[in-house]
């Protein structure tokens, strides 16, 4: 756990954390509300990026450089989920179009 608050640097960090948390929660809202699958995937992708920021902040706050490695790893990997979903989405549509050429509505 992180210790108690003393200098104004800490207060600034807290504000930053608050903003990032707010960002994460709003993105979360989009994941649930998102009418189409695409919206949800975009929101999750954003969440991935915000998570990288979150971890970077952690390394800043705790002074541990180790968290940064985790942040880089995530930065490299996070988008793969999106690519995989996009692939599924496309193949699913290609198949749906092949089956009934009408304007297929995506789930």
């Amino acid at each position, binding site marked *: 756990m992180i210790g108690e608050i003393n200098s104004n640097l800490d207060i600034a960090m807290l504000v930053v954390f608050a903003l990032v948390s707010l960002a994460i929660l709003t993105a979360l809202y989009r994941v649930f509300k998102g009418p189409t699958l695409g919206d949800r995937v975009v929101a999750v992708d954003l969440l991935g990026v915000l998570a990288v920021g979150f971890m970077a902040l*952690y390394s800043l706050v705790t002074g541990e450089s180790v968290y940064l490695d985790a942040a880089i790893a995530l930065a490299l990997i996070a988008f793969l989920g999106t690519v995989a979903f996009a692939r599924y989405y496309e193949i699913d549509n290609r198949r749906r179009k092949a089956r009934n050429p009408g304007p297929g509505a995506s789930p």
Partner: protein
Amino acid sequence: MTMLLAVLSPFVLAFLAPALNRVLGDLTPWVLASLPALLFVFFAMMIGPIAEGEIMFATVSWVPSLGVDLAFMVDGLSVTFALLILGIGACVVLYAGGYLHGHPAIGRFFLSLLLFMGAMLGVVLADNLITLFIFWELTSFSSFLLIGFNHESQKSRDAAIQALVITGLGGLAMLGGLILMGRATGTWSISEILAAGDILRDHELYLPIFILVLCGAFTKSAQFPFHFWLPGAMQAPTPVSAYLHSATMVKAGVYLLARLNPALGGTDLWMMTLSIFGGITMLVGSIVSLMKTDMKLVLAGSTIMALGALVMLIGIGTDYALIAMGTFLVAHSLYKGALFMVAGSVDHEAGTREVPILGGLRKLMPITFAAAAIACLSMAGLPPFFGFIGKELIYEAVLGAEWLAALLVVLAVASSVMIFAVGGIVAVRPFFGPEHPDTPKHAHEAPLLMLVGPVLLAALSLVFGLLASPDGANLVDIYLLTPLATAIAGQPMETNLHLWHGFNLPLALTGVTIALGVLTYRTWDRTRAFWQALDPFIFAGCQKWFYEKPLAGLFAFADWLFRNIQSGNLRFYFMAIFGATMLGLAATIGVRMTPADFAFDMPDARFYEWMLCILIVVGALGAAQARNHLTAIITLGIMGYSIALLFVAFGAPDLAMTQFLVETLTVILVALVLIHLPQRVFSPRGISRARDLVLSGLFGAMMTLVMLAALRVDQDLFISEYYAANSVPKAYGTNIVNVILVDFRSVDTFGEIIVLAIAGIGVIAMLKYRARRDEDD
């Protein structure tokens, strides 16, 4: 050490047998028979010292921690059995060489036969309960191989399975008894147990031990109601019947009872049960032998009768009974072995064993006839053969029995009458009178290999008879009977065998037996239908109720269980698994824990860490009510990511990285799999949804309780301190997690990656199989 070599040498030779057979060809029987002959001499040399009351011991420690060692003990009882096993074994090996001459799988036959010989030798010499059990099971196993030798025929396969199931289950029960016996007396060594007889007899475990050991003995020695497997075992080639199912293997149960008699015997329960069951088996055996027309089945029936008699004699337990048991045991092994070989020769030469269509073989097979005649006279119990002395002693023992002597006398006389008739059926009918028209082959004398056995054993029946006839201590008494009876009784015995007991009741009974026996033989053709009418009660009935019905019931239950448990519905499996875990946890928590164990104080987390927790909960709820697979996967993805962030919050970057990577790869895999999953959206409605909700809710609550309880436990940090301290000096690494994985506990990791590889191969195989199946249909 030489003892161990003696017992293990048959096993070694067994595995060499096929190779030897290819190399030596026709010489194989002689070479293979030389080992039992050699061992026969080795044990024969021990008769002298044993006669003076000495008991040979030899121990090689095998599993010291459990106290199990390859301990061997040779006393009167063991040496007699050993000599029987090896003597008749040698004859049977020679006989089999002739009987199966030119058979393609003769190498395999010799392998199983010698395997059995080694196992049987192990049983009779074992001085450790566990070693006894191991060799015991080996005999059942080799008997299975031998009965099912011509495995093409369905009948011999069924017979082999039946024999294995009956003797196997009996053996299992016996193991239970032996273990209880070991615990009651605190030692596995048989000699010590025999000395501790009194402790056992009034030990509260005596009844279970008694029943379980009896199960083993009765199934192995084909006692009523488990006798039906023995005639079935006649599917085996005749040498096997001659060896296993007359002289040695079926006597293992009798041996066990005789061996444990000093420890378990002497109580009323012991004497009552053994006498009654022995008597009934004796009668049933005799009736079975009169029912059948195939020579081997007739002889099988008479073997059941003999086994019953032996068990009955042990049950009676008087001095006379034990001497009678010893004599009859040897006499029976000799003549029964010879008769089975005769039956084999007749079958081999005349092409059939059906007595009604055999006749006049006397002139065609003179030597075989001579052996058959002598053996049958000994079986019928006529002087001066050894069988006569055996039967006289049985009559005296039965007359002197303490319990229901009258009933036992009647049973004994009735059985002897029928066995006298069997003697006629086997030795007189096929050999005398005109040559029967529809005998398939024109018989002529059996080859030399198939003559050595019968002639030798028949001659011994006569020789033993003559040796035992002079009054006062004769050779048979001193060297054979006295040590044998002493071993069975457990205290020194004086045996005084002699042919002529003067005019007394047993002699009168013998006269009656002879008269009725001739009558039964004469009327055999007509009365056979009457005996066969008894079949459903004494034979087929037992087989149905003690084998076919329970087995069918077992299969039906297994089928029912499979249909209900493996319903193929994944949701059912999950429900079963979670439900069971929850019940287990709830039970332990309910019983062991008090609410105090779950007290906890709110953690002083920062608001953004609380936010992560909210993220997890929301993710889980989202996944729960997701409309289709995809949204469910996405929301689970979020949950995974937030858990990883929590790991970061708690200062575990390694863990966080692994979690992210695994999460992403899972998403990729699922996205790939989803293409093949059916599109139907499964969202349960109504009761099933409520049920799932309740179940998962309870499961969650249970897990929380477990977590809280775990928090209260004062972790013994010794291990983590050890790793923290030694991580750098010993393993040159500061990243403790990896150091542990790769250095300290690398064997575990090695195991894990092997498991991973197996899982990988499994998945590939399934997917390839599915792909090919798609192409097929």
